[in-house]
Every structure is written in C-alpha cells, then in structure tokens.
C-alpha cells in the first residue's frame, strides 16, 4: 500500500502557566503504520497527543488531516476526523455497563455515519443493536468483552479493551494509545500487540505513547522521539537500537543499568504471617499472606494493579483495622542501650521484670526492683541498660500513631502522593512535619526543625522549587516524589515501604530514587518495593513477591527468574476466572 500522510502537526506549542509543555512540535503520521511516540515522563508526549485529540487547545501551530488544515477544539471534533484516543486514565463511567459507555456521546448524526460506513440501516439509540455491533468488532479484531458487564466489575485490561472498542465503534482510523502497557502483564501486552497488528492490517494508523524502549522496538514501524517538549527527531524502527533511542530521548548517554548491591542481609526485620484483610464489601482483599523481609534487603512486590499491593502496605503501616494474622517486627536492639526516646520508666520496669535487659558489661539479667525512678533515669542516661535480644513486637491492629509511639521506625511512601503522602496545598515546610508535628511542647506547632529539614532535602536531592514556601502541588511530579521520599527516609527507617515511587518520573529522577532506595538497603533497612515495571524490579530487588488476587502466588529470587515467569504467576488465576465468566 502506498504511504499516504494522514496527519501532520506543524509547530504545535502549548504552554501551561510558565511551563512550556510543547514547543514548535512537528510530526507526521502515515496510513497503516504504528508510530511510537517515545520520550521521558514529562517530555510532553501526552500533551501533544491531547492537542490532536481535542483535549487541549494548542497556543500555536496547525493540524492537518489528509493535507487539509483543521481545527480540533473538542474530542467530538477529533472523532469527526476519525481520530480517537485511549487515555492513560480511562474515561469511563464506573456505574454504567460497557455498552452504555460505548454509546455515550453518539448523536443521531453519528449513528447515521456509522451505519453508512458499515453499509447498514441507521440505528437510533438502541442498546441491543449497539451491543451486537460491539460483539462484531470484538470478533473482527480478536477482543473479548461482555457488552452488558458493568465497568466497576472489570479488570484493568478489560477496561482498556473497552476504551479501544469505544474508539473503534466510532469508526476511528487513527488511534492514539497513551502508555497502554503500563498496567498490563507481559502476556496481556502480547495480546494487545496482536490486536494492534490486526488493526494495522485493516489500514488503521496507530500512535503509541510510551517510554519503554523494548516495546517500541517490538511493535512500531517508526519512532518519533520527544525531548523536553520538542521533537528530537524520528527514525524507522528497523534502523533504531536502544542506545540510539536513549540518546535521542535524554540528549546524552545514560547508563541504564541499576546496580544491585550484593550485601549480606542482617537478620529478620518484618515477618508477616497469615495476614488477611476484609474489604469494605466483605470480600477478602488479602488472603493468608506469608513472607519475611530481612534487613539490607529489597523485597519487590509485583502483581497486576489492584491485586492487593496497596492494601498490604497500608495494613502493615497500620491503616486498616479489619485484619487477621500477625505482623511481627524485630526491632534491632540486640546489645543496644535502652533510651527514653520511646520508652518511659514504667515500660522499662516492665521489660526488666521480663528479663529483657542486662547491665553493661555483665551477662546476668538486670533487676530494677527496689530502684527509684531517679536511679533508673541516671542509668538510662548513662546508657547502662542493655537489651539482650532484638525487641519483638506485633504490629497487627496498631494504629500509625501507636506504631510510632512504640519507637518503630517504619516509613511508608504511598502511591497516592498528593492524596495521602503529602498535602498539596501546604508548603514544603508544613509537609515536612506531617509525621512529626506533635513534637514539641504546648499547643503551638514548631516550624524550625522542619524548615531546616526542608532546606537540607532541597539541597541534597536537588529539589527544584521557587522557595520553601511554595505549595507542593505546584512542583513537578519528580520533585513532589523527592519531597515525599526524602521526608520518609530522613527518619532513618528500619523498614521502608515504597509504592510505585517512580511513576511519572523522568529518567534522572527515577535513578535518583533507585539510588536512595539502595542507600537505605546499604544502611541495613528492610525495603519493600512495589513497582509495575518488571525490568526495574528484577534489576533492583533481591527477591520478588508476586501477588495475585490478594494471595501470594510465589516468592522468587530475582537472580534466578525472568519476566515471563513473573508474568505467568501474576495472571494464571485471573485468566481461568475470566474464561469461566465468558
């Protein structure tokens, strides 16, 4: 088939406030090709495509469809030119069925046009007829979807399928997919690629926005690279290698290897036994989870999204009540002196009665019976009371504040940065003291220490901010994440839990985060890392725990496994179930 230019973007510029998201971008798309739009997070890929899909109105530049200048000012306009986009965050109504979601927005004229294209009689608003047409599309391209299923019962991959069908139903010829593989397992990605190839055969043009090089090389015919909002160039895939693409993407050479430090572990830190959690609807979200994390170890957690990763971390952090099982924490106190930092005299007396202490330099258990509080205080201050063994505590059912009061340094970087980890409307200083604002006497908050910490982090982690008094939500994603991770690490945690810490970050920021995590491992912390990129998990972590539907599907040693094996563990059961449904 002769190559014909279907889309041409000329000089597209889009500015948000003071941030130039796209500057003078030129791009063309030919029929029957798969074009990858490659670039780091924050390089303006999505913004550029949103301009084509009618979400954003570009500040300058023109769009040509089939050689004619057009103005696309709304998604409806885009559909008129047969352009459809599947956004990274799906635009679906949860309470509607699949077919309702598909026909939303279709006017009488749209139905007529669809019918004209199909060569059938025009149907009005008729859900049954639409459902039939959806089934036809499914059969044509090899999808599987029940048109009458409600969206809130669908898996992520089903939702994505629905989004693609929504676009196909409207007869799009140009389909834009924004990071379609981010939430899929390796097997699901293969399926998606098959569908895309089938669509390509049908003469459709596809743009895939991505930042994963291996996928680019696998699926696309041509690659266009965006760097800092500008098109750095395009290249035929057959001429491209990972190295060339990276250089185009970042502008300079990058070492893409994450160094896993091979250091010996330092004993058990966190032991989770038979942990179960009931969700709000009474369904079990976590089922009999068992695992152990050691000091100086990074345990990766993999799984398709919604398999219980979030709930697992939140349960350990003390945010969920409705749990069964135990979470044992080994406080590394062996041969360490007791301090008043988290133990008061009463607690020290109790522990001494249980024979937990010995006097410095002596072996026999220490008895505090008959000693006055003053004497004990003096002994503690002179660091004379020593723990025999690690302190063992059960965290189950404890609230975050109780866990902190026990003296357990447990840090948690939640996936929802602004909705949970930080307060977007507060400045850096106030965010620093989120976990520690109760410190200090009286009812007044003390902002001196947090201010010093904020300044330290800004300098150390190169956080780009106009001032310490800027609201956190005004910072870029990478800087927000640095603020959060920096604060959590600043407490020198014994256990560090991070969820999707590099989501939406550019390469340099991502590597900075990996380095921070590695440093914690070096310092002896036990790290639990929840991620979606299996390549990163395999490179960074020592072991990987695969969650499937709230259960542990397996714990593998990262050195002896590969992506496919993990991918199979992630999905096996889900596939069985969806076949049952069908």
């Amino acid at each position, binding site marked *: 088939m002769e190559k014909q230019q279907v889309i041409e973007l000329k000089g597209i510029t889009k500015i*948000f406030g003071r941030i130039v998201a796209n500057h003078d971008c030129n791009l063309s798309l030919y029929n029957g090709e798969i074009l990858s739009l490659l670039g780091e997070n924050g390089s303006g890929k999505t913004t550029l495509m949103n301009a084509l899909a009618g979400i954003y109105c570009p500040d300058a530049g023109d769009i040509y469809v089939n050689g004619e200048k057009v103005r696309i*000012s709304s998604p409806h306009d885009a559909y008129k030119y047969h352009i459809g986009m599947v956004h990274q965050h799906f635009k679906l109504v949860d309470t509607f069925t699949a077919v309702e979601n598909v026909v939303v927005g279709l006017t009488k004229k749209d139905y007529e046009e669809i019918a004209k294209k199909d060569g059938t009689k025009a149907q009005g608003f008729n859900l049954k007829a639409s459902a039939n047409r959806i089934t036809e599309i499914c059969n044509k391209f090899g999808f599987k979807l029940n048109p009458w299923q409600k969206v809130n019962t669908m898996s992520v991959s089903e939702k994505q399928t629905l989004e693609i069908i929504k676009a196909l139903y409207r007869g799009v010829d140009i389909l834009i997919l924004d990071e379609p593989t981010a939430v899929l397992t390796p097997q699901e990605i293969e399926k998606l690629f098959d569908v895309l190839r089938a669509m390509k055969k049908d003469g459709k043009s596809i743009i895939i926005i991505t930042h994963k090089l291996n996928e680019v090389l696998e699926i696309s015919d041509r690659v266009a690279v965006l760097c800092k909002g500008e098109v750095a160039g395009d290249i035929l895939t057959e001429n491209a290698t990972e190295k060339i693409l990276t250089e185009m993407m970042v502008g300079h050479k990058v070492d893409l290897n994450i160094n896993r430090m091979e250091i010996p572990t330092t004993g058990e830190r966190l032991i989770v036994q038979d942990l179960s959690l009931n969700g709000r609807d009474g369904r079990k979200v976590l089922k009999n989870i068992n695992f152990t994390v050691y000091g100086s170890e990074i345990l990766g957690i993999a799984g398709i999204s919604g398999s219980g990763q979030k709930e697992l971390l939140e349960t350990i952090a003390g945010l969920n009540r409705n749990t069964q099982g135990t979470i044992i924490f080994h406080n590394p106190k062996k041969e360490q002196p007791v301090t008043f930092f988290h133990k008061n005299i009463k607690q020290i007396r109790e522990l001494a009665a249980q024979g937990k202490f010995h006097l410095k330099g002596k072996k026999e258990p220490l008895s505090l019976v008959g000693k006055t509080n003053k004497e004990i205080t003096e002994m503690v201050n002179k660091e004379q009371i020593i723990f025999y063994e690690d302190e063992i505590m059960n965290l189950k059912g404890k609230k975050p504040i109780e866990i902190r009061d026990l003296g357990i340094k447990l840090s948690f970087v939640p996936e929802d940065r602004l909705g949970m980890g930080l307060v977007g*409307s507060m400045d850096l200083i106030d965010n620093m003291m989120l976990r520690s604002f109760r410190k200090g006497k009286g009812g007044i908050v003390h902002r001196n220490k947090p201010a010093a910490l904020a300044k330290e982090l800004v300098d150390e982690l190169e956080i780009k901010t106009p001032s310490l008094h800027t609201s956190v939500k005004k910072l870029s994603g990478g800087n927000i994440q640095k603020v959060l991770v920096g604060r959590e690490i600043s407490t020198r945690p014994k256990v560090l839990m991070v969820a999707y810490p590099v989501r939406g970050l550019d390469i340099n920021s991502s590597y900075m985060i990996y380095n921070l995590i590695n440093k914690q491992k070096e310092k002896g912390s036990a790290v639990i890392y929840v991620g979606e990129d299996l390549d990163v998990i395999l490179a960074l972590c020592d072991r990987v725990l695969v969650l499937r539907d709230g259960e542990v599907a397996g714990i593998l040693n990262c050195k002896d496994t590969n992506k496919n094996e993990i991918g199979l563990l992630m999905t096996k059961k889900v596939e069985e179930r969806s076949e049952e449904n069908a």
Partner: protein
Amino acid sequence: MPELAQKQKVKKVRNPLFHIARRNEVPTWFVFVVKLSFILGALLLCGIISFLVSPITLDEMPEKFISYYIFVVEGTFFNMNTAFSTLWNASLLLIIAAAITPAFKMKFWNIGAEGQVLMGCFGAAIVMKFIAPSIPNFLALILMLVLALIFAAAWAAIPAIFKAFFNTNETLFTLMMNYIAIGLVAAFSLKFKATGSTALGVLNAGTHAGWMPEIFGSSYLIGIFVIINLVVALWFYLKYSKHGYEIAVLNGSVRTAEYVGINVKVVTIRTMILCGAVCGIAGFLLVSGSSHTVSETVVGGRGFTAVMISWLGHFNPLEMVLYSVLNAIITVGSSNAAANLQYSGEVANVLSGLFFLLILTSEFFTNFRIRFNLRQFFKSKNEPPMSEGQTPKAEGGKQ
C-alpha cells in the same frame, strides 16, 4: 479511509475569539486590584438599581443617583450611634463567619451556624428570663454565657458525632438542625410570652438584668471588643496551633490524616464543638448586647450570610473583616436609602445577594486568564478552516 474525511462538508468557521487558561501564580497586587474593582462595581450597581427603582423623579431630586450613597453613609456612619450599630452588625457577621471557618477548612460543610447561634441565644435568654433578675448582673452574664456555650456547642456536636461515626451527610443534618432550633425557640417564646402579646418581647426591660453594660454610651462596645479578640485568636489558632495544623491536613485529604495518625473522628467532633462554642458566644452577645430577647428571627439569616463571607474570605478570619463590614454597610445603608428614596426596604437582601454574586464572580478573574486572539479571530474569517458545526461562541466558552 482518507476519502471519508474529505467527504465531509467544509464549513467556514472562525478561530475562537478567546481562550481561558488557569493562572498559576497570581501576584497579590493583581488580586487586590481585581477585588477592589469588583467591590466598586458592586457599589455602583447598587446605586444604579436604587436610581432605577426609586419613584422619585429627577425633577424632584436632581441628585437622585448620588443621594443613594449619601443615604447609605448617613444610615451607617452618620453619628456615633449609627456607626456603632453598623459595626455591631458587621462584627456579628464576622464572628459567625470566623466560627464556622475551622469546620469549613476541614471540609465539614456546616451550614447550621444559624441554628447554633440561635441555640446560643436560647440558652442566654433562658437565664435572662428565669435567673437573671434574682442575681447580680455580672453573675447573670457569666451564667448566660455558660448556658449559651453549652447549648450551641451541643447543637454543633450532634451532627459532628454522626458525621464522625456514620459519615452522615453534614450539610443536610446541620440545615435540619437550624429548623429544629427555630421550632424550639418558637415554642419557648409562645409558652412564656406575656398574655396578650404574640412574642416573648424584651426581657427585663425595667431592671436591665442580663443586659450588657454600656460603655461610652453604647452597649455594643464590649461585644465588638470581644469579637475582635476572638477573631484574632481564631486566626492564630488556625495558623499556628497543632489543632489548626491537623485541620489543615484534613483539608488536604482524610487519607493523609489517617496516614499520619490523626484521629479524624476526634478532630471532627472537637472542631465542631469549637465552632458551636464560638457561635454560642455570638448568640450570647446578640441577646445581651442588642436584642434582649429571643425569637425565631433574631439571628436573621446571618448564619447563611456568614457561610458566604467565610468562603469569600478564603477561610482567613482577617480577610473576612472586609466583607462583613461591606455587607453590613450595604444592608444597613440600603435600608436607610430605601426609606428616604421611597422604595421597599427588602432591597437590602437583593443588594446583599448581588454583592456576593459579584464578589464571587471576581474569583474567576483571579483564578483564570482570558487570552484574546483578536488577530486570528478576524484573520480566520477569510481562511478556509475545517471544523464543522460548532459556533465560535460555544467553542470559546468551552476552552
């Protein structure tokens, strides 16, 4: 496939005339200029409306337009008495607005200030009616304050408790509590009214028991002084106290609060009790300082007006001073103008509503920026752009 798109009819369409984008950083002077021009605009509009509705002809009163403003000033700051009365009105609005602010800041939509203040009035009036005549005046005032605090705080705590434990919709709950308070007060005043009259009437008119003492000839001064201090204290509480910090975290998100170990239930109930207590003080001041009685209408919608003031003041008690004073001037002054220019005094509510709508509108100009594309707009008339169907106006509004 390419033919399909070409088949579409090509219609001439203009580029959008303007384009709306969110402002990121807004300089303070700009906010100031926008607000000031909208306030002036609102005042101008009040004058125009007064000019239009007054039946007095220009022959009878050539300075008719200006006279509205003259009468407003006369009605508000003509002499010490009117000035104090205006300030009294403003400070009552201010204290109620400041009282509900902590609740609003933690996203507890308390529109029950009307009822909470009324319950404060109720508590104060009970003491005034039954106990005050037989005890020394300062003791009576203290007792009135205590009962007002208890009543109002309880009234605020009830919806808060249900919100904290069952997540009951607080907007409707507090709204209903208003009407229950109104009903209770109505029943009370009917039960204890003097025979032959329709309402409770001024209490202790002879003995002035439970009346706020006069200073410099005004019974308002003590109240105004108390309110100013309370508002500053609330501002300090929100900004510098640990409680205020917890409220600010809750304003961010409930999940964050749980994550950092804040007990959301405790904070919700505690903050609402504080709101209620301050509303109770307002009710006490209202009864002891000016109304000297209680009736269904004694709060007079101030609880609702305060919601708007709190919001327009961006939940900053100091910023609310401006709007409460302006609103008091407009309502008190317009009533005076209405009497002199011979139209209905109900105009006060109309103008107050318009004032708030206009100030609210100004928020748009400080949050968004309109960029006009005049050149493209006129140029594109002669070019053949492709988009179909939509009018430029509709498109412009959407962007």
